[in-house]
């Protein structure tokens, strides 16, 4: 709830002074805004549906199109079951762990397990608490679904689902609490408008660790592993793009100027990033590609996520472009020097553009660069330092805990299918189906 309170408070204070998101006393804010606003509620209902759209079918299609036809359905089943599992966990204890009433730095406590105490009248800022729960649930369900891009075409369904259930419990909820639930990062005054750290860096790290633990696909670097359907990937990309308006502008938790700025920035950062990726492609190999355009779109969206309501529309173009170019070089050059198989570049795009976005939010938020400015008394240097600190905590936490959870999962249900099953394709061997009968 605090996330909302904060940003709502921020929004109303917008005309007077631009403040970064920081933890405030929730009760005080609630005393001020204690009636429902139907306009804010309308926008948050819609934003929630938009983020749901990013999961079903956004990320599933984006990923499904990128793998070989024989595993196209496995990404769909994995995404669906992971997201559904997290939704159940969310109402059982996830919401409480992340946004519960406890004053802890890392943990929201058990006070709201089974959503206890919440009714249709409960408010969170100017919107019903049920709606805030639903909105935040979509974030929690989307994030682990991003991770599976790191080890496609070889992971066991049960392994993927179990790992994600553990991961949200021991990584996502604590870090969400730190960032939005009144925990550590909040007390530091981190600026993370829509979850660059909690969602993207977090997922990128877990995917990288997973790619390392699970090992590369059989035939990597030898067999043709070209995307089986780029139109499918493009549909997925576009749905992610449109859904991201709910993700970013919805994070204002209101239908106001801050949401509007976040939306405009989401457009311009994406535009800058897409043009940048295609330009670099053209310069380095003579051709701009459709997968390049899609990759640029995602890189831009990731980069602008923490910055959406804090920077100006022109600054966002540069922010998106920088995130995109660095991701490009990571994916096209750096990655090839290492042996790991982060198959769909979850780390290369979500992780890398996530880092860039988190740091640059602290830069482009400066009023001199068109941003809304820092909190009273905070300098750009100080803000960048806070940004770096919270990214660093996320990385360390993510690497260590994810590694342990992969190992535990491997022991309990196993992480990888047999070589024969992998060669035949997961659709046949794990799901008993074929994607196409044309």
């Amino acid at each position, binding site marked *: 709830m605090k996330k909302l309170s904060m940003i709502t408070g921020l929004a109303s204070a917008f005309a007077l002074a631009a403040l970064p998101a920081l933890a405030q006393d929730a009760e005080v804010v609630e005393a001020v805004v204690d009636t429902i606003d139907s306009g804010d509620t309308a926008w948050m209902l819609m934003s929630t549906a938009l983020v749901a759209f990013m999961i079903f079918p956004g990320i599933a299609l984006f990923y499904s199109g990128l793998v070989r036809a024989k595993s196209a359905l496995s990404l769909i089943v994995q995404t669906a079951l992971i997201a559904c599992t997290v939704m159940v966990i969310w109402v059982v204890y996830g919401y409480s762990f992340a946004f519960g009433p406890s004053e802890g730095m890392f943990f929201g406590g058990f006070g709201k397990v089974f959503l206890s105490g919440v009714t249709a009248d409960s408010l969170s800022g100017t919107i019903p608490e049920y709606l805030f729960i639903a909105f935040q649930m979509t974030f929690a369900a989307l994030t682990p679904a991003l991770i599976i891009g790191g080890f496609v075409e070889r992971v066991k369904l049960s392994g993927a689902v179990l790992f994600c259930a553990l991961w949200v419990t021991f990584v996502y909820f604590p870090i969400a609490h730190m960032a939005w639930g009144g925990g550590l990062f909040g007390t530091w005054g981190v600026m993370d408008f829509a979850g660059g750290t909690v969602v993207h860096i977090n997922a990128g790290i877990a995917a990288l660790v997973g790619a390392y633990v699970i090992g590369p696909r059989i035939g990597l670097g030898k067999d*043709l*592993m*070209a*995307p089986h359907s780029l139109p499918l990937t493009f549909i997925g990309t576009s749905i992610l793009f449109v859904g991201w308006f709910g993700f970013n502008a919805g994070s204002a938790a209101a239908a106001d100027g801050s949401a509007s700025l976040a939306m405009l920035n989401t457009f311009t950062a994406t535009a800058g990033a897409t043009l940048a990726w295609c330009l670099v492609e053209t310069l380095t*190999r003579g051709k701009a*590609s459709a*997968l*390049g355009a899609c*990759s640029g779109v995602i890189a831009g969206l990731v980069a602008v996520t923490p910055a959406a309501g804090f920077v100006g529309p022109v600054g966002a173009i540069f922010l998106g472009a920088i995130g995109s170019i660095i991701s490009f070089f990571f*994916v*096209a*050059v750096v*990655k*090839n020097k290492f042996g790991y198989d982060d198959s769909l*570049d979850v780390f*290369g795009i979500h992780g890398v553009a996530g880092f860039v976005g988190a740091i640059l939010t602290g830069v482009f938020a400066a009023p001199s660069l068109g941003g809304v400015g820092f909190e009273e008394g905070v300098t750009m240097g100080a803000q960048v330092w806070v940004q770096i600190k919270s990214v660093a905590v996320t990385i360390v936490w993510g690497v260590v805990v994810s590694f342990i959870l992969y190992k535990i999962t491997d022991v309990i249900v196993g992480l990888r299918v047999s070589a024969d099953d992998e060669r035949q394709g997961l659709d046949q061997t794990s799901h008993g189906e074929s994607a196409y009968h044309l």
Partner: protein
Amino acid sequence: MKLIIAAVKPFKLEEVREALTAIGVRGMMVTEIKGFGAQSGHTEIYRGAEYAVNFVPKVKLEIVVPDALADEVVDTILKAAKTDKIGDGKIFVLDVAQAVRVRTGEAGDDAL
């Protein structure tokens, strides 16, 4: 009877079919294939991953004709499929021992 197998460029299919119809060929089987030969393939890059696609799309025609017609069929394909550029394709001729029409049970040249 002869079975004439020809691999040609896909966009030449219609032209070849028409030319063959004109000289009295009344049936054929057409398959989309991947050709490998002197004509080189191409490279595709997906993010960092580069793939050499060594095959070139071609269509394969299989036509069974009476012995007497075989040479004319070969010549006709030669003419219609030619673009004088690499990858124009190949024609192979094989002997056929027997042919039967399913609908009527007719055999030999009558079946064609």
